[in-house]
């Protein structure tokens, strides 16, 4: 699939790049695939060509269990772009994955969100791309 350049895996116009293409492609298959440094063994996000802890270029990609805990969250009441106007109010959370990295994601069914709340991934299909979201309860 990654060798099929006609399939743009990421959100249209979002500036996807060579490092991030596998991440977006995995989401299409409802998988969360992150890079792991082959020198210091850390998983990392966002995708990039070198490890931001040790600067090593050595990496492998692996599927991770994307469950995690809420570190912080906001409730967006005012959309800054028209495409999100119908969504307000919506919740964006920073989630610490059990596997290590932190991600910022939309939270579906956010009632009862709190610090440390357990969340699990859901894959939201936009047609052309797939978004990683989270739901409470994991």
């Amino acid at each position, binding site marked *: 699939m990654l060798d099929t350049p006609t399939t743009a895996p990421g959100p249209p116009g*979002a*500036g996807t790049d060579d490092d991030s293409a596998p991440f977006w492609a995995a989401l299409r298959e409802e998988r969360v695939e992150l890079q792991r440094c082959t020198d210091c063994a850390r998983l990392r996000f*966002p995708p990039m060509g070198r490890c931001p802890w040790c600067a090593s270029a050595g990496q492998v990609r692996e599927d991770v269990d994307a469950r995690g805990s809420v570190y912080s969250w*906001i409730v967006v009441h005012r959309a800054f772009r028209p495409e999100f106007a119908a969504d307000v109010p*919506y919740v964006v959370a*920073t989630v610490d994955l059990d596997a290590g990295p932190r991600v*910022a994601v939309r939270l579906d069914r956010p009632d009862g969100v709190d610090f440390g709340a357990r969340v699990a991934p859901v894959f939201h299909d936009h047609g052309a791309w797939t*978004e990683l979201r989270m739901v409470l309860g994991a």
Partner: protein
Amino acid sequence: MREAAVAGVGYTGFSRASGRPVLDLAAEAAIAACEDAGLPVREVDGIASHMVGSDSENAQALATALALPGLRVVLDLNQAGHAPCNLLAHAAAAVSAGLAEHIVIFRALNGRSGPKVGSARFPGRGGQFRYPIGYDAYPMYIAMWARRHLHETGQDVRDLAAVAVAHRAYAVRNERAVRRTPLDLDGYFASPLVADPFRVADCTPEVDGACALLVTGLDRARDLRRPPARIAAAAYRAGPRPGLDIGDHVLTDDYTRNFTDLLRDELFGRAGVTPADVDVACLYDCFTSAVLMSLEGLGLCERGAAGDLVRSGRLPVNPHGGLLGEGYLHGMNTLAEAVLQVQGRSGDRQAARHDVAVVTSGALMDGSAAVLTTDR
């Protein structure tokens, strides 16, 4: 080593729609800063600026508009509100090293009628993970930090409110401020939510305008019109993994401490003062939470006590009303207010004691700061 000082400041008016090109605004502020100092504009031989993307004009363009005979230092930092004290650091270093004699640093933009930085999509590789999900504006990122900071430090939204209310009380006395309607706690909590925990009253209003400072040698500044504001220290700092762009913060572990925590000891150490010596604080306040975090990070109060400090009024914090009141010139106006305070020129908002001022530029994982002192 030759010491450096700020010798003058210049402003345009701040408005919702300047109706003028950004370069005109920049030139007006730069000329005003030179006139304020009593220095002929043609003696300027260095210009330093900052911008977000392409929302301003570069140093070269301003030199042309000012008809300068020559330039020895130019610097254009694409670093948003993290830049003003960083520009000051570079200008002071350049003057000290003899690279230039008189450097104008400026911020100019049509931030209200032109591109709005609050909702701008920054270039860089982090945006692809934020923008498509509606995590797409700076108030959201800072609100994300604010909620965790308040939680871990035992503070709450009443402490955000305290910042908004105190700043507005100052802004009422500042003829330059764009928000001068008095604000009390009821008014704060009636303000609409934008990105909870932030309300409109937590957010700086974007404006059109320009602000410029003239940096020169302390020895030279003593011969000019205004008392020098001595640049005792200025520094920039980012910790590890500052991110792939200015909105990318998922690689930062701790949202409860910003860059001020990292540079505090170096900044005050180089300035030869302690936090207890600070008479007035001019702290970057794109959003209220940044003031709380920077008061704590700079050691101006204990962690968790920033809201109490603001409510107490013990320390003048942003006597111009901050960016919250005066308008979002990306912190160049906050640096300019510190100069005016040290020079004793802030009128009826002047701090009684003003020998030592601390200034910050930036809110989250990286930024810059400075200590200005009277010439003592």
